[in-house]
């Protein structure tokens, strides 16, 4: 891919990654969300789904580059894809905290508008025990938080100056944790669906394929090295 294309492709990737957010906003604005039976559940699932999808897309960059020498500069999009995954993960977490938990966002917003900012805290105090209970008891929540914390760490160490400061090797080692985050995301998904529901299967297979591609690549490299050195 010619280097001069990169800025326009970057703009395109930004656009595509922002589409789910735009869809959410548009659904809220048009009232389509209100016609939905359980918009809280829908937003939670929508943002969770896109988080996992973008995580897998991020992971697909490296194997895709290896398909052809001219795809090498795909790596220029990897960081932004990863940051978008983190963005949606945070949106997903916020949905959990401020809607799914029982936090009464509409009442809080109208309270704030009416000049009672205290409702923000009151409402938080009311739902906090529920959230704590979830954190203590529900393993799908625990593994979700774990994945989000990993993504937070990766996002925090993503700027170029951190890379320089850490050194390429250490940085790359830390950033392989994105595989752990994606795997945790899949586990989270399996643990939250009912027994017998196979909705997480496609994503899980995709992750397995990406991991296999990675293993196969390093096996090939090792084999080549041994042939070259032998």
């Amino acid at each position, binding site marked *: 891919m010619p280097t001069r294309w990169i800025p326009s492709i970057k703009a395109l990737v930004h656009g595509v990654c922002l589409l789910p957010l735009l869809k959410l906003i548009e659904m809220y604005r048009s*009232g389509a969300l209100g016609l939905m*039976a359980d*918009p*809280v559940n829908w937003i939670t699932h929508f943002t969770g789904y896109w988080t996992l999808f973008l995580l897998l897309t991020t992971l697909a960059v490296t194997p895709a580059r290896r398909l052809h020498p001219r795809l090498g500069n795909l790596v220029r999009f990897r960081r932004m894809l990863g940051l978008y995954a983190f963005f949606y993960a945070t949106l997903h977490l916020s949905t959990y905290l401020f809607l799914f938990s029982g936090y009464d966002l509409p009442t809080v917003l109208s309270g704030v508008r009416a000049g009672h900012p205290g409702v923000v805290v009151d409402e938080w105090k009311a*739902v906090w025990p529920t959230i704590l*209970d979830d954190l203590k008891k529900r393993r*799908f929540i625990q593994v979700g938080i774990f994945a989000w914390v990993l993504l937070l760490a990766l996002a925090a160490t993503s700027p170029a100056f951190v890379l320089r400061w850490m050194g390429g090797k250490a940085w790359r080692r830390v950033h392989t944790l994105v595989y752990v985050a994606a795997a945790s995301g899949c586990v989270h998904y399996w643990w939250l669906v009912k027994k*017998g529901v196979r909705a997480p299967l496609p994503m899980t297979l995709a992750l397995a394929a990406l991991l296999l591609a990675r293993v196969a690549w390093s096996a090939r490299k090792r084999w080549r090295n041994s042939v070259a050195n032998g």
Partner: protein
Amino acid sequence: MVVRRGGSLEGRIASSEITPHEAFLNRRSFVAGAAALGVGALALRQVPGLIHSGAVHAQQKLATVASKYNVPDAQTPFAKATTYNNYYEFGTDKSDPAKNAHTLQTRPWTVEVSGLVKKKQTIDIDTMMKYRPMESRVYRHRCVEAWSMVIPWDGYSLGEFISAMDPLPSAKYVQFLSDDSNKDMPDKPGGFNWPYSEGLRMDEAMNPLCLLTFGCYGEALPNQNGAPVRVVSPWKYGFKNGKSIVKIVFTDKQPHTLWNDMAANEYGFYSNVNPNVDHPRWSQAHERRIDSSTFPRTVPTLMFNGYGDQVASLYTGMDLKKNF
């Protein structure tokens, strides 16, 4: 948290010892309600695909009489109650049944009654519907997934039907088996022990709250809501209520039930709504009440879904944490 008080059913029932004044009031609000429904339905019909997403059911008005079993909570709009369904035979996503249930053929339809009864028989659905006057009952409906609706169901007490079937004294349970034919449900997901099986203890089934249900919102049940006949036991989680029933079997042993087969630690035989017993994945202390607001409010879940006065006595002496 702003908690919408789900006014007590008990109070409602006490006040409806029908006095002429009450009857008048009831009739007036009924007429007003019917008019509002009519206008609403007309308005909604202007928006294509809103009510009948994919022409899933043929509209059939039902003649119903008023009932004393009504909760005063704000009702869930028809469009929401008929597009957000757990009916796995038509797909595991809650939007699937509304899209896929059109394949269900509800006529001709018969229900086979067998097991421990004086006379085994097969009954035609239209005969069954006419057996007793149909009541319109507004019930709370609590899903195990921690959301809830308020739905006007149409039917009559299951107990009346059971009495007419003359079960033997040895019958301790009643099992409901749902349709699982490939003709009606060509795309059932694998991995489930079809047909859907549910059951009640005999005294639970005889409780007048337990409704043999043929319609909702004054119309024949839409396919995705379990046409042509289902059970509604409002003090239990939604999955206890078998849909599209084809067989009713009286037994002396506790019948197997589908979700209990799938995960016994998550779905007990009783599955009474109980805010003190959590599901491994969901706290059962609260529920998202789906009504006409954009974002459903979270309200506290009531023991027996608020029907304790009618049903708590069924469970005296039982440890409901063990018998969840």
